[in-house]
């Protein structure tokens, strides 16, 4: 079974994002960019499926600006077999991403697609669900456990009330949550090998898909700042202050 893993390059999770002074977006110049942490978990899960003999090939796909190609190499270094990069300097929304992925999936025919549950830049939490809808495939979002057996996947999901387990008939869509696995680190020889591997580069037009955004970003602003707080010396003082503030 082929496993397809869509991955996105985002601002590194350890960087504090800064809003640009002109209110047009977040400053990404000279900022460390990485593979979205949830996508990294998705790649790791695909590798584990391959190690267990459940997956035969891992194909990673990313849609984004030229420099985002780096994450295909990162995925190669971890163990992905093949990478497809769809290059565009435009802003690509989840709906457009899902449509491009749908076209790629029609050609690749994977048995399982594993996405991140959320990209930590746009915080949309949509792409996997949209893709599942477009394909008419079953979905299991926010997965913390995945087992594949023949043409069935059993997935435990993190939901608001606790955990839920679903059984899916493949092909299906799974999106990853934090507890699914702990991604491995690439080894140096694998990083070197990844540098030489080919990447198949395409454009959105190659799929005949209109990626024009449906949402116009009118403004990006700083969230309101909190007023400075105080240090209290003891538990009694804290209780007194909280009572005075009317919250106890």
């Amino acid at each position: 079974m082929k496993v397809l893993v869509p991955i996105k390059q985002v601002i590194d999770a350890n960087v504090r994002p800064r809003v640009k002074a002109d209110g047009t977006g977040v400053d990404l110049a000279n900022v460390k960019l990485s593979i979205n942490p949830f996508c990294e978990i998705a790649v790791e899960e695909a590798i584990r499926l391959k190690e267990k003999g459940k997956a035969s090939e891992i194909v990673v796909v990313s849609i984004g600006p030229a420099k985002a190609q780096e994450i295909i190499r990162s995925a190669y270094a971890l163990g992905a077999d093949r990478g497809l990069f769809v290059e565009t300097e435009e802003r690509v929304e989840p709906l457009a991403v899902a449509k491009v992925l749908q076209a790629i999936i029609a050609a690749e025919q994977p048995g399982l697609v594993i996405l991140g549950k959320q990209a930590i830049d746009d915080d949309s939490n949509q792409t996997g669900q949209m893709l599942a809808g477009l394909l008419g495939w079953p979905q299991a979002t926010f997965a913390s456990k995945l087992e594949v057996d023949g043409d069935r996947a059993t997935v435990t999901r993190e939901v608001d009330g606790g955990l839920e387990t679903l059984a899916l008939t493949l092909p299906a869509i799974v999106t990853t949550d934090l507890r699914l696995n702990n991604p491995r680190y690439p080894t140096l020889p694998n990083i070197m090998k990844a540098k030489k591997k080919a990447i198949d580069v395409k454009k959105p037009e190659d799929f005949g898909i209109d990626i024009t955004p449906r949402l116009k970003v009118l403004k990006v602003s700083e969230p309101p700042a909190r007023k400075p707080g105080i240090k209290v010396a003891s538990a009694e003082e804290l209780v007194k202050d909280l009572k005075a503030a009317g919250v106890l």
Partner: protein
Amino acid sequence: MTTLLLADHDNATLGSATARALSAARELGADVHVLIAGSNAKPAAEAAAKLEGVAKVLLADDPSLDHQRAEPAAALVVALAKDYDAIVAPATSSGKNILPRAAALLDVMQISDIIKVVAPNTFERPIYAGNAIETVESTDTKKVITVRGAAFPAAKEGTAAAPIETVAVTPAESGSAFVSESLSKSDRPELTAARIVVSGGRALGSSEKFNEVLLPLADKLHAAVGASRAAVDAGYAPNDFQVGQTGKIVAPELYIAIGLSGAIQHLAGMKDSKVIVAINKDEDAPIVQIADYSLIGDLFTIIPELDKALG
């Protein structure tokens, strides 16, 4: 025209997130119909009918909708969509699971997790873990929106109940089946609805300590219990306790952060709380920088003192 609100419920009761999403839905300016998709879900429909500002409740009652699996629930929303200009759901795990699937089938780009309705086509939403707020205008004719509950007040019960109308469901093969669930049981208030939240981090060190230190305090304050990702990953607390960018978003009157550092991903889930207290041994921890009140020291000495001071 009209707005459809997909309710979050467990057939027997209506989640408070629905009442909050209703407040956002009403700000769109049109009549609001609430859709209860479930199985034996009449009690949830009756609860929805009582909320102020609901013009009508649609009850889709069918065994296939029992656990709100995304495939049948999204298909139902799509089938009803032609009569609506906007489709809204709370950004709960269920709303987030179902609504984007419906949006794609309607060829609409969903606006996720709105915190403000600027105009019926313009919304504010947090991005980058709440480090930036984006104002977006939707050019789609139909709007599909999820609502961050913490940003809107819960609609109250009104004086008259809205009518409940039954809608027909055509069950279809979906490729997914419910197997089991293990839900946290607790007499404490629900995390996203609580007036006070007591949250613990990695410093608690074990699930025994987490429970021993935090639960008596939470009980005394009638508070919900939350946790950082590190505490959940380490197994001190269950996953549904996680507060943050990728966990639950809370905005209680009082948030007490105990032995957690306040990483940006954690702050994203609680920094709109009215009053924040940090209890931490490191006065340079990010949580201390944003807290209204900080008590610097060892939590294992401070919490018993706090228990005592509370009487």
